[in-house]
């Protein structure tokens, strides 16, 4: 079975800037795929390339095994949910949702019937006659979802769909989107800069940086085994040890990552456990996060290390005290 979406060496330039720089990936049918990265990393451009709003300067794009690189957006079996929803203000909610059928010249009655069906799917069946401007942000988002799904596309693209929602709404929508995707069984491709969102919703995540994919893996692998310093820092905020310190601790100059929860604080005079690395430093800040307590320690060599713990005992090292930070050798993940 061919991949739902495939990029082969795709590139997109704006003048001197390489927005997308030789990106290749393959998304399986029915997958919930996330493209994660900071702004300007190229993830949104890639999404737009899939949709057809932009044409690549190099490489090929395939949908379901067919080369669609030159095809207009209306010739692709892909639909998009826009970041600001892009609902047409001069049409009612029902007309917005039915738009995809209208342009395919589906008879009026059937348009109405299917549009109502979609609205029921997103639980907005009673709001068909309202105008988009009269709806709340969350409601507008559902309408744009319904609108994008009415043509039963093979692939649904979502451009930072939850960014404008407040925390509670966002969490609700995350669960709903996941359920929706499982029910419909279609491929979802999801762009976000929020790593928590990507990790919690996606089957696989592509981490973008400066137009390239740094790592493409399942959320768990990304978190436990980041491949590069960028991924280590961006996904889950691990400690990255590089340069001289890395040289001293491991004997090699290769950087490595240690998750904050693997870092332990000890008295400077404690004995060092076997098979571990350690350094000394001063506690700069202790933050209470409810379930966890985080400590920022300034090492003698200058770097800032985060230690996170669910135990209360990390609190015996108040700000300004000298500590030893230590972690087992296994906890260190080598990075590129």
């Amino acid at each position, binding site marked *: 079975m061919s991949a739902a979406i495939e990029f082969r060496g795709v590139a997109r330039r704006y003048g001197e800037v390489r927005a997308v720089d030789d990106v290749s990936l393959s998304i399986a049918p029915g997958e919930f795929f996330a493209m994660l990265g900071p702004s300007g990393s190229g993830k949104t451009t890639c999404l737009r390339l899939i*949709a*057809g*709003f932009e044409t690549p300067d190099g490489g090929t794009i395939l949908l379901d095994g067919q080369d669609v690189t030159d095809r*207009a*957006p*209306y010739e692709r079996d*892909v*639909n*998009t949910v*826009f970041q*600001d929803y*892009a609902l*047409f*203000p*001069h049409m009612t909610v029902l007309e917005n949702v039915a*738009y*995809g059928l*209208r*342009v*395919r010249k589906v008879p009026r009655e059937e348009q109405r019937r299917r549009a109502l069906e979609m609205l029921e799917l997103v639980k907005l069946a009673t709001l068909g006659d309202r105008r988009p401007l009269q709806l709340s942000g969350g409601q507008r988002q559902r309408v744009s979802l319904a*609108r*994008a799904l009415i*043509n039963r596309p093979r692939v649904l693209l979502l451009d930072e769909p939850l960014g404008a929602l407040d925390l509670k709404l966002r969490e609700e929508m995350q669960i709903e989107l996941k359920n929706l995707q499982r029910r419909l069984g279609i491929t979802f491709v999801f762009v976000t800069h929020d790593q928590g969102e990507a990790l919690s919703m996606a089957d696989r995540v592509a981490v973008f940086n400066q137009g390239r994919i740094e790592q493409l893996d399942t959320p768990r692998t990304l978190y436990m085994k980041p491949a590069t310093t960028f991924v280590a820092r961006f996904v889950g905020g691990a400690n990255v040890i590089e340069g001289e310190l890395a040289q001293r601790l491991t004997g090699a100059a290769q950087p490595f990552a240690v998750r904050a929860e693997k870092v332990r604080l000890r008295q400077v005079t404690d004995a060092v456990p076997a098979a571990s690395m350690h350094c000394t430093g001063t506690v700069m800040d202790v933050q209470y996060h409810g379930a966890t307590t985080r400590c920022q320690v300034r090492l003698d060599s200058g770097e800032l290390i985060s230690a996170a713990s669910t135990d209360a005992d990390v609190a015996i090292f108040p700000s300004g005290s000298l500590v030893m930070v230590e972690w087992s050798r296994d906890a260190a993940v080598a990075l590129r």
Partner: protein
Amino acid sequence: MRSSAKPHGKSWNRPSVGARIAAFAGLAFMHVPVLVIVLYAFTTDDRTYAFPPPGLTLHWFEAAFARSDIWAAMRLSLSVAALATLFSLVLGSLTAFAMARSTFRGREAITFLLVLPIALPGIVTGIALLTAIKSAAIEPGFWTIVAGHTTFCIVIVYNNVVARLRRLPRNWIEASMDLGADGAQTFRFIVLPQMATALLAGGMLAFALSFDEIIVTLFTAGHDRTLPIWFFNELFRPRERPITNVVAVIVMVVTFIPILLAYYLTRSGDDGG
């Protein structure tokens, strides 16, 4: 718009009585002449411009409507304005579509070109068109008038349409195409409804401009007389002044109303769009 009960500004910044008088007096000054015209259309005195008018009557309106030369001039003005509006709507919209989104070399040159008919004084446009007409050995008449009017009405339509198009979020066109509509369908279902007010406003402004135009028309009209030209000729004749006043009121109404409507259209477009 909330009205505030207390005066605007800090107490150290309140305007002096003189400043207030100057401002309102200036504003009133700007409106007096028009009120005068309307007044004089009803005067019973037909010899002089004496003030105050000895009496008021509707007689001159009757007389004006009976004059065939006024009707002929009116017909000409209306048909010229209608055609000029139509042409400038088409040409102005085409230009607006081209300029609204794309960036290309020569873009600034085109903006400059469009503004030129309005930037250079009417006399220059007028004499230029006339020399061209004479050189091409064309007989000045209906079509030369229309040609002149269209040329500076294009920028009026262009300004309105391009401003509206620029406010149209690009997303909407992408969303429409994403859902399966090609360029033609997107235009029909999404762009055109949004542009409607701008087209209407631009068209009405163009109509008013064309109807009222005298400066360039005097050069391009040859022997034909639009209503402003009729009016201009009458200015130098002493007889039947009140009829001239009536025509002035007619011209004012026919030009003022479209402009007012266009103003409200563009304003409400801002809130609703």
